[in-house]
């Protein structure tokens, strides 16, 4: 009897497991663990952009908080569509002259559930594309820190679409695309030090210079209106960055673990060194400094995240925190440009240091697919890193300059003095973040008469005393 029962059970198991076996045979390359990890990593990176909206939104004056957050938020919508239509194809599609991808993957044509072994052999191609989309979203959003409080919204929209298409997509192709020229050069950029941070920081600086300073900059205080939001935003950025860097391993493996460890370590070290630097320089350790330092450390480790040891991450973070502090606290004041929320100070300078640090600290003991840096006896990597940095600076700066001049020929990029004075929230969007009183009449004439009739009457006995 027992044998019969066991045989029945065995037969049932066979029957139920057949479809599974058949499915597994069809898509043997897709790994469930890697795919789950990459879907979650993509979602983590997505959360960074609303986090950035909070980070930036808290640092502006209250009359510009919505317009600043809108710039981050609307980019999620714009780039999500641009990426599916043609952005992904330009960045990662089959190579044209080592400069740009082809248009073969327009509309995600051919980007499906099967893996693309050129980029990630164990996850659906669509998941790789959506992971990359989140990078394409946050990069132009980072630029908005430089142009905050003074750019007109229509011009901002046009700039964003053009910048993503003309700067980001080719740059991503150079560095990460199969046969991209910087990739072929041997330069390393694990999660976007040049593609994301240098490009956005340099473009932000150029945009800030072209737009000009905010009205009253340097003469009146322009203080953050809600630092708790900024800290919450920094926390979300830090959290999301685990998807950004660990996810860039493109698999749930030891390399992802290493990237996670060095990311957290560098952020922590930079938060400490920034706070210490300003404590010594100005006498008080500030929370804005701690939040800014953490972001600087995250930026600095990004290109190196898959190639360096945890000890190297401490050095990269400590140095990154101090040089970014000097960038925003000293360099900006000396040169007098109005990089409103320090997109260049944190991302441009931090990204540059990170790309150089990759050339110094990278080691094949961490990642055999990488390369050794200068400290491990290979100066060639540092040379490749510097070429990639210079190329990114030139391309981002010239491209941003041309795009803004072209946009300005069609629609004014700078808000008028009146618009700036009133704030962009009400002049660009017709909204206010904080309203103490509702100053509009909400009662009709008839309702008003009814209210008056309902009111109890009292006998007045007014006498002066």
């Amino acid at each position, binding site marked *: 009897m027992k044998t019969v029962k066991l045989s029945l059970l065995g037969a049932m198991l066979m029957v139920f497991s057949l479809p599974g076996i058949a499915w597994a045979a069809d898509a043997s390359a897709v790994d469930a663990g890697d795919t789950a990890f990459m879907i979650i990593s993509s979602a983590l990176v997505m959360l960074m952009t609303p986090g950035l909206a909070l980070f930036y939104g808290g640092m502006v004056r209250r009359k510009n908080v919505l317009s600043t957050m809108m710039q981050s938020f609307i980019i999620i919508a714009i780039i999500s569509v641009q990426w599916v239509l043609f952005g992904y194809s330009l960045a990662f599609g089959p190579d044209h002259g080592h400069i740009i991808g082809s248009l073969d993957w327009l509309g995600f044509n051919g980007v499906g559930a099967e893996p693309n072994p050129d980029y990630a052999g164990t996850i659906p191609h669509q998941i790789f594309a959506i992971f990359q989309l989140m990078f394409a979203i946050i990069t132009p959003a980072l630029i908005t820190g430089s142009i905050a409080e003074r750019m007109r919204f229509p011009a901002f929209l046009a700039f964003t679409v053009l910048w993503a298409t003309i700067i980001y997509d080719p740059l991503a192709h150079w560095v990460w695309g199969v046969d991209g020229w910087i990739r072929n050069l041997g330069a390393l950029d694990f999660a976007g030090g040049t593609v994301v941070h240098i490009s956005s920081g340099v473009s932000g600086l150029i945009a800030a210079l072209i737009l000009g300073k905010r009205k009253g900059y340097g003469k009146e*205080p322009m*203080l*953050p209106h809600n630092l708790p939001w900024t800290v919450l935003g920094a926390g979300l950025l830090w959290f999301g960055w685990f998807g950004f860097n660990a996810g860039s391993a493109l698999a749930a493996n030891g390399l992802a673990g290493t990237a996670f460890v060095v990311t957290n370590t560098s952020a922590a070290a930079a938060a400490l060194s920034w706070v210490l630097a*300003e404590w010594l*320089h*100005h*006498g*008080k350790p*500030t929370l*804005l*400094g701690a939040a*800014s330092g953490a972001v600087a450390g995250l930026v600095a480790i990004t290109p190196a995240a898959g190639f360096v040891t945890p000890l190297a991450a401490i050095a990269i973070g400590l140095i990154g925190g101090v040089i970014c*502090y000097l960038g*925003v*606290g*000293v360099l900006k*004041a000396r040169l007098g440009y109005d990089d409103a929320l*320090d997109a260049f*100070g944190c991302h441009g300078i931090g990204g540059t240091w990170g790309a150089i640090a990759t050339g110094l600290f990278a080691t094949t003991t961490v990642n055999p697919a990488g390369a050794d840096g200068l400290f491990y006896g290979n100066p060639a990597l540092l040379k490749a890193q510097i070429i990639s940095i210079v190329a990114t600076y030139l391309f981002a700066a010239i491209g941003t300059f041309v795009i803004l001049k072209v946009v300005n020929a069609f629609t004014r990029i700078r808000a008028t003095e009146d618009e700036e004075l009133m704030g962009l929230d009400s002049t660009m969007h017709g909204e206010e973040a904080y309203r103490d009183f509702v100053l509009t009449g909400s009662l009709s004439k008839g309702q008003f008469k009814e209210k008056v009739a309902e009111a109890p009457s*009292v*006998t*007045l*006995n*007014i*006498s*002066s*005393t």
Partner: protein
Amino acid sequence: MKKIEAIIRPSKLDEIKEALGKFGIHGMTVTEVIGCGLQKGKKEVYRGTEYTIDLLPKIKVEIVIRDKWVDEVIRILVNTARTGEIGDGKIFVYPIENAVRIRTGESGEEAI
């Protein structure tokens, strides 16, 4: 009737409310204000840039009282709000022409 307007340190509000309550004064209007007098501003630092904040937060307490209570109320306020440091605030006294309680229509001293 007189209106007493006292500009005080925010930390002193609870003590003043309690002292006035013991004296029998429960009605008051309290506003958060900013201002400057003899007290110097303070320094704040944001991302390495120093700003001097000249206007400091204070509390304005407004009460309307019978004429005969004025001296005693001022004495209570001064004794309660004083720390001896610069920035303790100021008291202003205004004459009040009339007062009306909206609910009942009473006026004059009956209304305060």
